[in-house]
């Protein structure tokens, strides 16, 4: 089995295809082209145009700097530009999906970050005895954030928990690798009162 094919699969699965955005862009393109095309045909047949006849459209484009109201034209320009920026952004950014590659044997494996996060939460809960509800885990592209809210009286140190979690994450053999950050939050004020 060629690793090249697997690399291709993993890459495609961890990055957005941008198909939805492409279909919207293509729709805009088709609408614009169809409108112009219809305009040209109607002009050649000397028929009345759909909205704006070709000659008056040309006159409008030439007179664009003096179009009234000015603010409306300016806002339209800004909206068009922003839409263009959004499309450009989608075209040029990598579009990473919240997933990681896992290594196990010779197979291509892709895991949602959510699966990793909930598994780590369970692991920390089992190892420390803190209830699952008091553990929040977020896994991003490069980091895993573990937030613990121990009950009153429980004393926790960050370092051993960090080592524990780091060892667990290492055993998943994720690509790209994930750094561990542990945060311990004081109990709620309301808990102290009660």
């Amino acid at each position, binding site marked *: 089995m060629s690793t090249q*094919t*697997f690399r291709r*699969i993993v890459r495609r*699965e961890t*990055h957005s*295809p*941008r*198909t939805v955005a*492409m*279909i919207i*862009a*293509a729709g*805009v*393109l*088709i609408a614009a*082209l169809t409108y*112009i*095309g219809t305009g*040209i045909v109607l*002009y*050649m047949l000397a028929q009345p145009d759909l909205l704006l006849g070709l000659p008056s459209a040309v006159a409008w484009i*030439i*007179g*664009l*700097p*003096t*179009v009234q109201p000015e603010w409306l*034209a*300016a806002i339209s*320009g*800004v909206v*068009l*530009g922003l*839409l*263009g*920026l*959004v*499309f*450009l*952004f989608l*075209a040029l950014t990598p579009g990473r999906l919240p997933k990681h590659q*896992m290594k*196990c*044997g010779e*197979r291509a*494996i*892709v*895991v*949602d970050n*959510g*699966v*990793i*996060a*909930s*598994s780590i939460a*369970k*692991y920390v809960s089992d190892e420390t005895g803190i209830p*699952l509800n008091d553990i929040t885990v977020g896994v991003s592209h490069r980091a895993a954030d573990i937030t613990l809210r121990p009950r009153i009286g429980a004393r926790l140190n960050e370092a051993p928990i960090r080592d524990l979690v780091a060892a667990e994450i290492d*055993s*998943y053999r994720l690509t790209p690798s994930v750094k561990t950050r542990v945060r311990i939050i004081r109990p709620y004020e309301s808990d102290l009162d009660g």
Partner: protein
Amino acid sequence: MNSTNRVLNRIILFVVGIVLLALGAAVVTIIIWPAAAKYWTGAATAIKSWTEAAIADTTVEATTINGFAMAILLLIIILLILVILVLTHVGGGRSRTVLHASGQQNPLGHVTVQESFVSDALKHSLNNREEVLFSSVSAKNIRKQPVLHLSVTPRQNTSPRDLVEDLNTLVTNLATLTGENVPTYISLHSGLRAKLARNQRRLA
């Protein structure tokens, strides 16, 4: 996983984005900046008179039909066809046949394993597992090579490492059974289905 051409997607997005950005920027510039407005009027008028000359030169006698407009129309139609062609090629790449065990000398001929057989075999094994909420198996052609895709949604708090090791064994066993090691791609998913289900395994 499908065979959508992603580079093409990006190219279309890029082109449409650049055009829209340029149009927007032009409109804003000519409204805000008088010098640009002056240039715009001059350039637009020049283009208009050039176009009018081109239309006059190519007009067929006694009609309003002219070659210049026809050329532009043709260009528009070609562009439209290209865009529609791209849209119709989105997706695809699914394959029904997973493997041909043709190397074996078999008096009955070639052995072909259909996707449904592999799918049933794997799903049957996975349904017995408490931590697997949902699984689906499909076959795809990737670079003309059949690849098995095993998609699994485990319960929350399931260790992906243990699950993947088991899935790996399962696929290896299947390979032993059918006599051919089909390239397999495994994906583990979280999602609404996992969030709504019970966290823990139910005790029987």
